[in-house]
């Protein structure tokens, strides 16, 4: 499996990572190198094996519907590390409302 730098640029877009032309070539090489190692998984004989997402086997770890104000931030704490704020809001460059939902 090899990856070219056009694919890398598409992935960069999905991952929201700015990548230069030069970087994309280098990344394509690194990806290919890594995927060669990963491709060996096909030989592990696991095609019909069940999938494991979590190793603990835990189920139904849920919370009761209780508000815990001590776990919440004040407005000042919420905004303290932000680059730009205005009247208690975070500020971002203008975008269209509601991309999804």
């Amino acid at each position: 499996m090899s990856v070219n730098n056009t694919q890398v640029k598409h992935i960069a877009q999905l991952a929201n990572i700015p990548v230069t032309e030069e970087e994309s070539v280098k990344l394509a090489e690194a990806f290919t190198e890594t995927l060669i190692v990963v491709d060996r998984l096909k030989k592990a004989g696991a095609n019909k094996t069940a999938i494991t997402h979590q190793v603990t086997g835990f189920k139904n770890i849920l919370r009761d519907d209780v508000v815990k104000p001590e776990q919440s931030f004040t407005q000042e704490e919420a905004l303290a590390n932000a680059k730009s704020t205005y009247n208690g809001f975070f500020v971002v460059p203008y975008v269209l409302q509601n991309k999804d939902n």
Partner: protein
Amino acid sequence: MPYKLVCGLEIHAEVKTNSKMFCSCKNDPFGAEKPNIYTCPVCLGMPGGLPVANRKAIELTIKLGLALNCQINLFSKFDRKNYFYPDLAKGYQISQFDIPFCHDGYIDTSEGRVGIHRIHLEEDTAKLSHQEIDLDGDGELEKVTLVDFNRSSVPLIEIVTEPDIKSATQAKEYGQKLRQIMRYLDIADCDMEKGGMRLEANISLRKESRTELPDYKVECKNINSFKFLEAAIKFEIDRQTEILQNGSTPIQETRGYNPSTGKTFSQRSKEDAADYRYFPDPDLPPIEFTQAEIDTIKNKIGELPDAKSVRFTKEYNLNEKSAKDLTINRTESVFFEEVLSLAKNESLECQKVINSLLNKKIEFSFEEKAADVLARFKTATTSDTVDTKELQITIDKVLSANQDAVDKYKAGKTAVAGFLIGQVMKELGKKVDIAIVREQLVASLS
């Protein structure tokens, strides 16, 4: 029309819980006095914030599914839907991908059955608003987007129908029925103006003679009333008919609806269809219910509006229209049933009683006792005579003895008139025409 509508709805509703979906912050985005006061590391997407799912929100989702005749997946899980937007704190939304809590249900409308494809639970995003502000203090305004995370991670139910909807009016009826059921079950307030319930319609047309689904669909988003939903679908039917009649196919795209023009408009084409890279959220263990647990939830549902209205027609001999009107809202339906059952006990004609209530011939409020309301009905319908003088004396007497009520009336609480009328009738000891009493009482009060 040579074409038939093919339409499915995707409806989101914010779930009525105390706390948010995955953290213990308050779920009250509309009541919050300031932006960003109900946030924490989890719903602000800060490093190391971990989600823990709200049991109540899950139970309410299953309750809705059962009320809508759905199958329940005993085993379910949450997945991450990955995309970037400033309203999405974590860069992914926790949602459900391949195993929603509920699937394959339906709602019956007067124009036929609308299949429910799936119901799943996810988290809401932050609220964006757009303003021109002088951010850097240079005196010049710049257009920016403001973000408020009070809404971030509020539980959100999504109900997706099959493409079964055949007309704009059916879409509206389906939506109204769904809202009614969610309110009956106290699952959601469905305040559409504030965004507590959001409508999306997938609209396409097919030739009368065809049965397969069209090869395109237009998604109409951000519709915030049933009236607009109906209008948007009608507009789309006309727009798409014209395109099809010209021999082309409408573009697969997302469109918005502008209430002031009554038209839909293109927002973005689906060409750049997103790749959400769904995968099971490793922070959240899966959920597994037993059938017994599902049955317990089912037993809590109680009677739903359709069933209740059918029962009302049978039990109290009401016409369908009245029975429907009485069962719109759960608390009101309980009140009406008290009146009805008393009326039935006294062998009164229930339809007549209800007519006089719904026509407002008999004034009443839902805070009153059913017996008092029924008493007024009886008085009004069997009347003695009374002369104006005698009536005025009685009214004066009642008014001076009930200064409190008089004050309330003058402060604008006109509903107390009902109480005062009742007192006058009692004092008179006669069954006089209530309209006469009302007229003279109101005159005395003003």
